[in-house]
């Protein structure tokens, strides 16, 4: 080594020699004696030269990052599984604390504060969801849905899941992987159910006709991928339960200050995303998923994720937090465990806990009301632009579908023109949902102001009627 690297305290030649002398080794190379000669790389690594100083490295990385265009410098209406919500400054402050940022595992005592923060994540999310078991997060909403469907399959001994055709294509792709190809012995068949073209609600007649003694679970999202609040959720629950199936509901937790929690309309397992709760989009790296249920033993014993529980310590009156039912995880039981677990997004669970503590019941109500009003306002002013139709004009939360067919323009063209004006238009749905024609999914949240929405409408009017 021709220089002493700032990250490596022992890269000083004298220290290396001291350590080699202590163990009686002739050289560092000698320590690699276990690797046979014919296993070794025969040349040196060809990597770009080291940027040794922090200043050089920063300049290099920043130059690359500046090639991005972001949603702060632009006005964005993208959603579809990842959303721009306000992230309170305190969330970043706490998630950046070294004690939370850098470590892995300690003991229940030395990790006491971290474990408590995790328990506060599950406890507060449990209040929002009205559910008594919430696991530590999994990678994403899709992964949570996939695990929940596998839980339902094990609970019922059945191998078919019913999902809505209106579903995030990425989430469905994850679910399909979790359900395994049909050649595999524990394959779960995925049955898609259509929707009412006028309302975007699930087709109940089709659902009823497809439910059977093979159905392990019915899975729905509310609001669904196209933004529509599933008003028939209670009927869907009843139909699923009548068939002996589990009812799994996916939700966006930021909606739950104003929308009814799914437990109230019969959900057995609730899944969803954690990203809206105080985590930046991070180009999709803010994604996280949760799984929740009632506290019945048969559900508890199917969780693949880590479960943190409050418990007493040996000191009377004192409590701590430990992992429950670890034995059923892959850590405890390898291939006989429930699916698998591993590193997930536990740092974001702390951001989520901080977020929910700041929000309280009033914060969730306020943000929900603001979002639902602004989203409807946006839909209304866009509907007035010639060439635009709002596909499902009522009964949504923060997202809605804007159709450009009448303008004769494609979403691609519209979005390109919007980008020239510093606006990221809604996500193009034309490939995934051809029945909707040239449509885009628009998301409006609390980060938008009325003037942002008016600016979008004015820009679209200009673009569509040139």
């Amino acid at each position, binding site marked *: 080594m021709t220089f002493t690297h700032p990250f490596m305290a022992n890269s000083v030649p004298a220290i290396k020699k001291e350590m080699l002398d202590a163990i009686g080794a002739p050289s560092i190379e000698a320590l690699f004696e276990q690797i046979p000669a014919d296993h070794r*790389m025969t040349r040196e690594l060809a990597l770009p030269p080291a940027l040794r100083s922090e200043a050089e490295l920063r300049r290099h990385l920043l130059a690359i990052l500046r090639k991005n265009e972001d949603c702060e410098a632009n006005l964005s209406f*993208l959603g579809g599984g990842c959303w721009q919500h306000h992230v309170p400054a305190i969330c970043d402050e706490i998630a950046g604390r070294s004690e939370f940022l850098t*470590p892995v595992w300690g003991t229940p005592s030395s990790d006491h504060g971290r474990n408590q923060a995790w328990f506060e994540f599950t406890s507060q999310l449990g209040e929002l969801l009205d559910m008594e078991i919430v696991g530590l997060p999994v990678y994403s909403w*899709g992964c949570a849905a996939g695990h929940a469907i596998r839980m339902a399959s094990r609970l019922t001994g059945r191998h078919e899941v019913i999902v809505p055709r209106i579903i995030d294509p990425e989430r469905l792709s994850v679910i399909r992987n979790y359900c395994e190809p049909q050649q*595999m*012995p524990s394959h779960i068949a995925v049955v898609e159910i259509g929707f009412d073209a006028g309302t975007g609600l699930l087709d109940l007649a089709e659902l009823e006709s497809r439910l059977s003694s093979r159905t392990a679970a019915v899975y729905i999202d509310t609001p669904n991928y196209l933004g529509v609040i599933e008003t028939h959720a209670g009927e869907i629950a009843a139909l699923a339960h009548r068939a002996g199936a589990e009812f799994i509901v996916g939700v966006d937790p930021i909606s739950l200050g104003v929308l009814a929690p799914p437990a109230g309309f019969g959900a057995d397992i609730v899944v969803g995303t954690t990203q809206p709760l105080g985590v930046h989009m991070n180009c999709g*790296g803010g994604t996280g998923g949760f799984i929740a249920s009632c506290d019945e033993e048969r559900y508890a014993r199917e969780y693949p994720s880590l479960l943190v529980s409050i418990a007493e310590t040996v000191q009377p009156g004192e409590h701590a937090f430990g992992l429950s039912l670890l034995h059923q995880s892959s850590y405890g039981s390898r291939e006989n465990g429930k*699916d*698998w677990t591993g590193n997930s997004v536990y740092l974001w669970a702390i951001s989520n806990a901080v977020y929910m503590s700041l929000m*309280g019941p009033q914060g969730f109500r306020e943000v929900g009301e603001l979002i639902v009003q602004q989203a409807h306002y946006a839909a209304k002013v866009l509907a007035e632009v010639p060439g635009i139709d709002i596909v499902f004009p009522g009964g949504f939360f923060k997202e809605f579908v804007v159709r450009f067919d009448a303008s004769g323009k494609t979403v691609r063209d519209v979005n390109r023109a919007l980008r020239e004006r510093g606006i990221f238009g809604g996500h193009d749905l034309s490939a995934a949902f051809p029945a909707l024609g040239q449509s885009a999914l628009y998301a409006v949240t609390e980060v938008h102001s009325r003037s942002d929405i008016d600016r979008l409408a004015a820009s679209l009017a200009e673009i569509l009627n040139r």
Partner: protein
Amino acid sequence: MSNMTKLRRYHAAVWDEPVVMEMGRRGRRGIMFPAADQAVTAAVGCAETLIPEGMRRTMPPALPEMSEPDVLRHYLHLSQQTLGMMGISLFGTCTMKYNARLNEALAARPELAEIHPLQDEETLQGVLEIIHRFDLALRELSGMDQFVFQPAGGADAAYTHACVTRAWLASRGELGKRDEIITSLQAHPCNPATAATAGFKVITLPLEEDGYPSLDALKAAVSDRTAALMINNPDDMGIYNPHIKEWVRVVHEAGGLCFYDHANFNGVMSRLRARELGFDACMYMLHKTFGAPKGGGGPAVGAYGCSAELAPFLPKPVVTFDGKSYHLDNDRDDSIGKVREFLGNIPVVLKAYAWVRSLGAEGIREAADLSVLANNYMDHELLKLRGVSRSHPQIDAWRMEMTRFSLGKLFEDTGVSAMDVQNRMVDYGIDAFWLSHEPWIVPQPFTPEAGEMWSKEDLDTWIAVLGAVIEEAYADPDKVRSAPHNQAVHQIKGAPLEDPAHWAMTWRAYVRKRAKAQG
């Protein structure tokens, strides 16, 4: 001369911090949102009328109502009640290393934090460039032909491999016929677990006296039902399987794929390449080997790389470069699709790329050298301590970057277990060591991994603390068994965590069960 090291005093912060659910007062606010603009309300009416009847929330959630500074102070107290690598953390298998704060500062900038993953690729050129540049670096380190960063952890990369294996088998008409994945007892549990979740039967080879399964055992296990081998090398005992090329040949001849779980890459990086050993695919943990922070268990990335033959099956999109600009290639018919939404944990990829650029080829070689030197230094000093032995003592070779030790003798002599020792070491400000994955192959295992970050002084301190705890175990075993004594809380009772009448994964469950217990 580790026993000359003077031990520092340490005590964790004790705040007796209540659970947040008990905090606050009705009416307090931690955050405000603006009311909708008057014109908005005038146009659409109030929120309640916009939500379909029956779908409105009727009971507000019972969340704490706290002021903003009270929330900040509460979570600061919790951070202070977490040792969290403020001490010396040699948590084996996790390769604890420095996480450069420059990377944190850069990742927090809006040019990354405020990027939406569905933006047009023209607006994502910086993100795609980082992905592509880092892909090239990993190709050089491994010899593989293509990497993706969608898997959200090492286990997810193992799962990705199981999914890729299914797609590869399907393309050859062998899915359903080749239904077995072979691994070893010392492979990380995620390998058998993800293989089983993907629908494969798992064959686990036991270790033999050389510290790894025998070639004969492997030959007996392979057949026309073999789909893949999933294996680490070296394993967590620091023993390198010198027959691994032969293993790969045997599995290939049987018609299966070979996946190299590079969890223990730190000791071999720059000295060998997975593809040159014959492997078809491999995995690196960017939050371990490549200097990105662990976050107490993610966000993480399991970088999955494979040969050109397997590349068509990779999760999509794949980032491509045409010499001028970067693209997202979604037009991949044979792709397994998604293992997780979007492109992956891009901030973690940025941090790993930054680590590679900071070190360069020479620095990566140095990190491997120092981690193996430090482990052998630890090994040399720890074996001098009473009651400490190591796995496979008959193998008289320098170990790789880790050694599996045993406190079996200490336990026999004193009744003090490895977990007791772990609980006592934290009293000295030493972060917990890793014991072992299941199943244990030595009694009372512990597995420190020194890595390249920690100074010789830190290593000496760690060794001295273990020495002091061992002496304490012989002199006053109850003191160690009842540890910790210097932490925010005492030992947790384990039994209630397994008891449906007592476990409580949320505060509301706790309140209900407590009330029931009190009658």
